[in-house]
């Protein structure tokens, strides 16, 4: 377990270094381009690289300390009060005691899809986010299963890696898009000028732009490799160890798989959720290769094996409870 936590820390540091290098190089490339266009010798390339470096340093520190708040803002979650739902509070409190971590804050997304995730940088600064649909449709044992799963992610520092990836990678993808577009249009205008020799450079920069737009999915892939699919299985089984009732999570997953869509989720935050927030069959077959989540049926099967079938509800029973 200790090795798993330090591997998460290592990956987080690697992602941050990668981000800083990438942004600095990007700054250098843009500066080099400006230098070339306006015939300035090496002024802008160095300047912009330094500016980009400072920008990258600030954003990485910012996303380390404020990552949870950013993710909360993106997903449009609000804090849940004790008065509003004492039931959830007691469940979260009890399970965090059982896991030996401080009690996480509880937030809710006002959507009917059933889903949940955890965010923050360490167990002391952690948040569990549940959708309203989840709270309404799951019974106590099922909710305990889901919350214990999220608490395991918190305990394993999966939340640190997941949140940092969501923000930094999201930012890289957005930046690549902006730069690709400006190169595309800027390059177009330039080629209409009759400047000799510029054509070759234009092509180079167009290629760079193309490279950047190809880069976005590559970055998404890196992110998916950094997050191993094993971590969901691990959180499932650790969660079951906390509740001592694997069937609770198995039943919950079966219910969730019926309707897990979250409208405020996007490509950058997808991997944080307990089940795919885009629902099933919404993605191309190719991308299932790089899915951050193992198939839900396989997860249920493993949990059922853990519980020896005790307490497992039938599919019909689950469907009835949802339709109620």
């Amino acid at each position, binding site marked *: 377990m200790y090795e798993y936590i330090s591997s998460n820390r290592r990956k987080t540091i690697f992602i941050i270094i990668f981000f800083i290098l990438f942004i600095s190089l990007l700054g250098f490339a843009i500066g080099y381009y400006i230098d070339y266009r306006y015939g300035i010798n090496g002024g802008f390339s160095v300047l912009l690289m330094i500016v980009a470096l400072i920008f990258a340093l600030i954003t990485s520190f910012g996303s380390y300390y404020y990552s949870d708040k950013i993710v909360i803002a993106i997903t449009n979650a609000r804090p849940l009060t004790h008065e509003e739902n*004492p*039931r959830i*509070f*007691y469940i979260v*409190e*009890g*399970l965090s*005691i*059982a*896991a*030996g971590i401080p009690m996480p804050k509880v937030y809710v997304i006002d959507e009917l899809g059933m889903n949940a995730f955890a965010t923050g940088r360490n167990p002391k600064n952690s948040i569990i986010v549940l959708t309203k649909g989840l709270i309404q449709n799951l019974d106590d044992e099922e909710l305990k299963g889901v919350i214990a799963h999220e608490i395991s992610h918190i305990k394993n520092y999966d939340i640190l890696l997941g949140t940092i990836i969501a923000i930094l990678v999201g930012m890289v993808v957005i930046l690549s898009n902006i730069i690709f577009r400006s190169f595309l249009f800027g390059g177009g205008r330039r080629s209409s000028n009759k400047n000799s020799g510029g054509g070759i450079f234009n092509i180079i920069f167009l290629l760079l732009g193309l490279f950047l737009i190809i880069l976005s999915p590559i970055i998404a892939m890196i992110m998916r490799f950094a997050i191993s699919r094993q971590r969901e299985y691990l959180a499932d089984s650790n969660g079951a160890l906390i509740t*001592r009732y694997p069937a609770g999570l198995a039943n919950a997953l079966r219910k969730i798989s019926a309707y897990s869509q979250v409208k405020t989720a996007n490509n950058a935050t997808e991997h944080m959720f307990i089940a795919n927030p885009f629902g099933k069959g919404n993605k191309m077959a190719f991308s299932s290769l790089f899915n951050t989540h193992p198939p839900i049926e396989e997860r249920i099967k493993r949990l059922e094996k853990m519980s020896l079938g005790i307490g497992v509800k039938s599919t019909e029973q689950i469907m009835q409870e949802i339709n109620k």
Partner: protein
Amino acid sequence: MLAAIIVPIVILVGIIIILLFVGIGIYNGIINLRNRIDNAWSQIDVQLRKRYDLIPNLVETVKGYAAHERETLENVIKARSLGIEAKTVTDQSKAENVITETLKSLFAVAEQYPNLKADQHFLRLMEELKGIESNIAYARQFYNDSVLQYNTKIQTFPGNIFASWFKFTPRDYFEIEESAAREPVKVKF
């Protein structure tokens, strides 16, 4: 000639230093586990205190509807003060079992008063109590897990050597009395 003396000495000193570091690691490991038990205990304590605070409130509410069930109500109060006064883990776990039993009989009494069962305040208290009791169970789970790990560490090699040097003693589990639950219910007429 000189090398023949120095080399074994260097190796010996190296081995001693390594052993020292391994020893420090094991010792710190045991201390960490012991601290975790204390932390786990304070978690139980927090939850128990919440229940102590709730009980007088609950008794007052029941009194409003069923004042003549004096014996049951007094038993609950008595059990509560027993729990507050408990010093050792064993005493505490015994006292908590008594409290749980007396609360059960209190609810059995409450069953007979429909007005009480419909009382909003009473329902709210029941909900709180349910939450606290399940938290006590989780806190006990964490505590007992911690005790198990610590006891295993100081009873197995090489922890047992350190235990005898530094006088680490096994800790008590927080046990729930299963026997009371297994006994058949006595019905009095």
